[in-house]
């Protein structure tokens, strides 16, 4: 959570996460370069420069694949949520690994060009009209630009400045980047390389990402919407509420509200966290504060405000109990508006 911006937010958990990630990258490169130098199944001998380029390229692909699996995994099974916690550092690291791959390529294939290496890269092959021999490099360039853009806008400042929905839309570029990377690999190295390991890594990785995304999308699609009664939206019967937890309901306009039961009283706040729109209703209340399951921002459920000195706020909603059920008024109150909690009298009319 932010009070005043600092360059990089680290805490013991993030150190731990980043440490494991760095060890993973180092191990991947080491295995690739020294333990099984033939892992790429090179049919013709290659020099160390190309080998390095391929190792970093394969590493970036694997990292991107893992990053893209984390989101749907966390949606399908909440035990994967901790992986989501520091995914941005993972993304920034991936951009660096991909840039190293590009650096090796430019330094080797275009180092002695009479033009600038980048110009050489853009002009070396312009057969865009065919699949065999397609200039696959351009797909890599596109993906690298996307990854750089995402890494460059990963600081919390950008989230607050652009607003989470705009930021998220911008960061959907990751999907375009991944499709481009798959194209870069399939139209590039896989045209030539029939080794089982390489094909499994690339095609298997891409298939896994697609299957997980489609499964998560399928699961989220069937979410029920609250039943509108006299303008108010029904959330759940009173018996369904558990102390310290929320029931989430979808409003007619598609927004979601989280209605919490705390000390026998109901309070409703927007389900979308002010940070990255994480699902607040999946968090648990401790001392009046609900903790966002994604990165741990906290809010007082009675007024939607983060505890001082933090300044984040989320909208609140009016709640009522009627006929043994709990309802919310779908008109959101401005972020941080205090609303008196409503006692949950079981069976109240």
């Amino acid at each position, binding site marked *: 959570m932010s009070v005043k911006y600092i360059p990089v937010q680290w805490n013991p958990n993030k150190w731990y996460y980043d440490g494991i990630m760095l060890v993973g990258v180092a191990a991947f490169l080491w295995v690739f370069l020294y333990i099984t130098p033939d892992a790429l199944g090179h049919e013709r001998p290659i020099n160390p420069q190309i080998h390095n380029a391929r190792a970093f390229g394969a590493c970036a692909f694997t990292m991107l694949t893992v990053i893209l699996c984390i989101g749907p995994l966390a949606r399908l099974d909440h035990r994967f949520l901790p992986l989501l916690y520091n995914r941005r550092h993972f993304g920034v690291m991936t951009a660096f690994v991909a840039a190293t791959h590009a650096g090796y390529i430019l330094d080797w294939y275009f180092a002695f060009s009479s033009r600038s290496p980048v*110009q050489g890269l853009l*002009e070396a092959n312009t057969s865009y009209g065919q699949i065999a021999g397609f200039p696959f490099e351009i797909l890599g360039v596109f993906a690298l630009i996307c990854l750089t853009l995402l890494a460059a806008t990963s600081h919390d*400042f950008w989230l607050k400045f652009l607003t989470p929905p705009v930021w998220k839309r911008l960061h959907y570029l990751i999907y375009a980047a*991944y499709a481009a990377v*798959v194209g870069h690999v399939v139209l590039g190295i896989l045209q030539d390389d029939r080794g089982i390991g390489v094909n499994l890594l690339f*095609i298997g990785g891409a298939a896994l990402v697609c299957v997980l995304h489609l499964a998560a999308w399928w699961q989220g699609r069937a979410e029920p919407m609250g039943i509108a009664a006299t303008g108010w939206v029904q959330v759940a019967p009173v018996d369904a509420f558990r102390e310290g937890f929320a029931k989430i309901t979808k409003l007619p306009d598609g927004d979601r509200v989280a209605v919490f039961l705390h000390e026998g009283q109901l309070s409703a706040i927007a389900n979308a966290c002010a940070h990255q729109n994480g699902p607040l209703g999946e968090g648990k209340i401790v001392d009046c504060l609900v903790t966002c399951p994604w990165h741990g921002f906290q809010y007082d459920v009675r007024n939607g405000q983060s505890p001082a000195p933090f300044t984040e706020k989320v*909208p609140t909603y009016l709640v009522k109990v009627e006929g043994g059920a709990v309802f919310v008024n779908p008109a959101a109150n401005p972020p941080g508006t205090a609303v008196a909690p409503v006692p949950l009298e079981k069976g109240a009319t």
Partner: protein
Amino acid sequence: MSIAPSLIFFLQVWGGVGAGVALLFLAWGIDRIDEDARGAYVFRVLIIPGILLIWPLVLWRWWQLEAQSGRWLARYQPVRRAHGLAALAMSVAIALIVFFGLSARQDWPADIAPVRVETGS
């Protein structure tokens, strides 16, 4: 004629304008529109690359915040539908690329021995 030089020139101009925007925004604008940035300076260095890349978006948001014209509720409306569509579009694109890419594979003529090309020959 190749478009590569014009493309590179365009990128240079884009970055140049972005540098101007970055200077203006980080030295002056950011303090006006974000209270969390006041008194915090080191993090601004990390913001520069982003401004160079998406400066039109920066100018748009800056203007919106100065004019206080954005809808406050928009900040709390996650983009779920678009997410499903993006995931779907990516999966279809990947399936097509892998299918057509692998179909276009050619076999290396194994029976042709490599020939060393001599300089000047």
